[in-house]
């Protein structure tokens, strides 16, 4: 059972109300344990539905990584919240779930969070020579040198 494998790795677990929230269990974990957690989900035939991130620097000076695992067939959604400090890195799980490769690149592109051990961490949606991280809450759209004031 997945609960037994996870019990030693997690900081906190709460059952969620599936009918209202759309997922079954929400866990909190430390970022260092993410590879072991992913291995546990892999061995129990879960797939990685998505990874996303929240910029919570204004709330509690953290980036929150959100990993969502699910099963084919009867849905069983587990959401992992892992908070990291703004200047810290997170371990990559792209070697365990190849699907994580692009999701981690997207988070690097949009938030500037780096993942240790990622095979090829580079921008994915923005162009390669772009400078900012657009989904940061304090991101300011830079002036476009090719557009005059009248175009707006």
């Amino acid at each position, binding site marked *: 059972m997945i609960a037994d494998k996870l019990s030693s790795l997690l900081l906190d677990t709460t059952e969620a109300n599936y009918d209202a929230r759309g997922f079954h269990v929400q866990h909190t974990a430390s970022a260092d344990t993410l590879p072991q957690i992913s291995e546990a989900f892999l061995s129990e035939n879960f797939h990685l539905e998505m990874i*996303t991130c929240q910029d919570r620097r204004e709330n509690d000076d953290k980036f929150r990584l959100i990993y969502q695992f699910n099963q084919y067939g009867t849905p069983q959604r587990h959401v992992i919240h892992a908070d990291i400090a703004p200047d810290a890195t997170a371990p990559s799980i792209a070697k365990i779930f*190849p*699907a994580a*490769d692009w999701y981690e690149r997207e988070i690097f592109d*949009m938030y500037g969070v780096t993942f240790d051990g990622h095979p090829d961490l580079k921008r994915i*949606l923005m162009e390669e020579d772009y400078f900012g991280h657009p989904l940061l809450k304090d*991101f300011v759209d830079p002036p476009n040198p090719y557009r005059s004031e009248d175009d707006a």
Partner: protein
Amino acid sequence: MNSRFEVEQDPKSRDTYYLNMGPQHPSTHGVMRIKLHLNGERIISAEPIIGYGHRAHEKMAENRDYLQFLPNPSRVDYLGGMIYNIGYCQAVERAMDIEVPERAEYIRILCNELNRISSHLLWLGTFLMDLGAFTPFLYAFDDREKILDILDRITGSRLTYCYARFGGVILDIDDVFLDNVSNFCTYFVERLKEYEKLVIGNVIFRERTIGVGIFAPDLAQKYAITGPCLRAMGHENDVRKDEPYGIYDRFDFDVPTQTEGDCFARTLVRMEEMRQSIRIIEQAVNDMPDGLFIAARVPRRIRPPEGDYYFCVESPRGSFGMYIASDGSDIPFRLKLRTPSFSHISAMPAVMAGTMLADAVAILGSIDIVVPEIDR
């Protein structure tokens, strides 16, 4: 790696070269680039390069309230616009606990399934056009036009619908609409048989698709494949069955599956899905109740209680999920769109390695990507 073709030569040998497929290649159906490393016509490795159509929908969501974001989801995937539009409304309705009247639920099912057929028809036409067959393209677009006309009558738009509202839909349907839909169903069931005669039995089509672009069984779990691509691998999974949203649990329909996981299997699955959609539409037309088309009391301010919400719907391409993180205000703290094409295209390096260049076109066509949905 595809077992039919083994790469014999050293990838570093001087006989290999790089070829850019795209960004403006007709078979990418949008602006997307695939960097192909080739040995003759055999693909050694493929690297999709995306982002040409990035419009920052997720950033937009963080800068406007829930109602103002309503026109956006149908622009994320312009071929399944109705399904995305309705799905977004259902996600917010569940977070806000808004009741939807019966009639609105039935109208939504009708629109969802009509939209699914029109998306599959466009896929059928363009997929076969990629493979060099021009006739089915004209047939499919002719039929798609009929659906667009039907939906145009009630929604006022033909592609990027914004028809659903929190608590229902914006305008009621009438008897002419229902007649049009019934006539279309009768017509289209016969038409599907013609498509099958025209396409499925064709020798060139079979040669180009059978055994091509096989999704290995372990690929599903590794890359979170969903939708018709998953069902072509033998999994009987459909969001409409597994976690029925709206009133899908009241309808009688089958989930078509195939076991091979190649381009041909994906074609068969989608053809059968159109037939099942017709079944759902017929039931919805027969059972259409009277009543309100939008809830009488919808909260004026949409402020979901603090917390995370995840809602997924079955789009024509797979499981489309919306992750909404609310901080209790009018504006989403974070809205993440989990799009199926993004997962599927990230699996392309594993699927394409070892196949021929011409097969890359067949594979891309068969997984039915919509590039703006990948880039968001």
